């Protein structure tokens, strides 16, 4: 199965958690070695985000991310695992499990530009 692992910045972590975090290089080595790391995206900070929506026919452009919460998404890794337990195991080896939060979400479908959803979907 393929999962998206959202890497979330969480200001609430402590120095002790920081100190306990494993190195990110170790995670990459482990994942690439297993062939479990498919893709990754690292994002610019939330201060660079722009939110776009159309309501009642009016375009609304606002500064900042789509939620007001203190936590924000810093990146996404696409990983391949046998099941959720394996994905959790891989998440626990990531430094951001200690220094932030990780959200694991199964991927519904993944494709390139030629793989657009059909009009009926």
């Amino acid at each position, binding site marked *: 199965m393929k999962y998206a692992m959202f890497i979330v910045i969480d200001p609430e972590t402590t120095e002790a958690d920081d100190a306990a975090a494993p190195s990110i290089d170790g995670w990459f080595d482990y994942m690439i070695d297993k062939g479990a790391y498919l893709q990754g995206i690292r994002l610019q900070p939330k201060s660079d985000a722009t939110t776009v929506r159309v309501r009642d026919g009016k375009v609304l452009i606002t500064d900042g991310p789509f939620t007001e919460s203190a936590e924000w998404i810093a990146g996404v890794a696409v990983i391949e695992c046998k099941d*959720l337990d394996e994905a959790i195991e891989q998440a626990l080896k990531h430094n951001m499990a200690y220094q932030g939060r990780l959200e694991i979400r199964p991927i519904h479908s993944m494709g390139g530009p030629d793989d657009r959803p059909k009009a009926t979907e």
Partner: protein
Amino acid sequence: MTPDRATAPDTVAGAVRHGRLAVVATLVRLTGDFDLAEDCRQDAVERALIKWPIHGVPDKPEAWLSVARNRVLDVLRRRRTELERLSDLQAAIRPADDQSCAIEDDRLKLLFACCHQALPVAGRVALTLKTVTGLSTREVARAFLVSETTMSQRLLRTKTKIRNAGIALRVPPADQLADRIDGVLAVIYLLFTEGYSATEGPPLREALTRDAIGLALLVVDLLPAHDEARALLTLMLLQDSRRRARVGRDGELMPIDEQDRALWDRDQISAGLRTLVGIPPDQPSGPYRLQAAVAALHATAARAESTDWGRIVRAYDALLAIQDSPVIALNRLIALSFRDGPDRALELLPTLQEDVAACPLSHAVRADLLRRAGHVAEAIPAYRIAVEQARTDSERRFLARRLNEIPQAA
């Protein structure tokens, strides 16, 4: 295996009950579909009810499984869209699957999937109950006092997440087993307390305690080396042994020191205490072990006055070190009040953490301590607040009775 028409229906019912979970577990593993598994199992039961009285009852669930599995194949065959799955399934169903050890494992795998921490807590408890007992959604809804619609959505969400999020039906590897089994035990204990707190309402709710004990027996059977599982089984057997004594004639909750100990189920107490035998006493105790120790100290006291409150206080101390909860802190205080007197406990009450004061139980505890210490004038208003905050009718009746027993309050 000789046909016996006179006793066949009973035997069939017994075999159906006994093999239920094993059959469902294997069918869920094969199909990945809880509903299809249950439908096919029921269908197999119907066939068995026709066949077995004539041909005799097979004594192993494997025989059962083949009927139910053929049914799975029939259904999937008819679902044309699932042709691909069918070929996978045919590959998966090999005679090797008939080994009974594989079936034992499937039950545990199913439990680990239903109790996965990635699922919402209420969903875990409901799906475990439904899968293990085969109750209808309506019955499960009644057991948890929610509407059938709410329950059916809850079950659907839980089953959908198991499928979509890739929660596997497997026993976790040894290094994760300890954490994951805690999740399974927590669901079993939730199921139990749901039934145990039901002093009124549909009888289904009380049956939850039996289901929880049955599940713990299964886990102990499958993972005999897991001490906390055995401790939980003991804890539930001992608590449940007081079932008949804990509600008074007028439906009021009876505190343990006032219960008629002749009503305690002695066989169940012995069974509970036997389950604990063999757990090494010197190793650090887990939370169920400590709670079981408290329950055992009550169960073995011939009279309320001979209770070893000192050891109970020490068990609660150890428990607080692992689980800092207001309910445990209050229970420790009650035990301490019997060891050192209610005045000492009243002195300590304000020193407890803030969340203890916020706990609804704290008013009842304070009122009771005031009454026992003879501070009648203060006890009366404290009982009035406690009555208002009572969570169940039986608790309210008990507190109201206590209030009326105070001469000035009547």
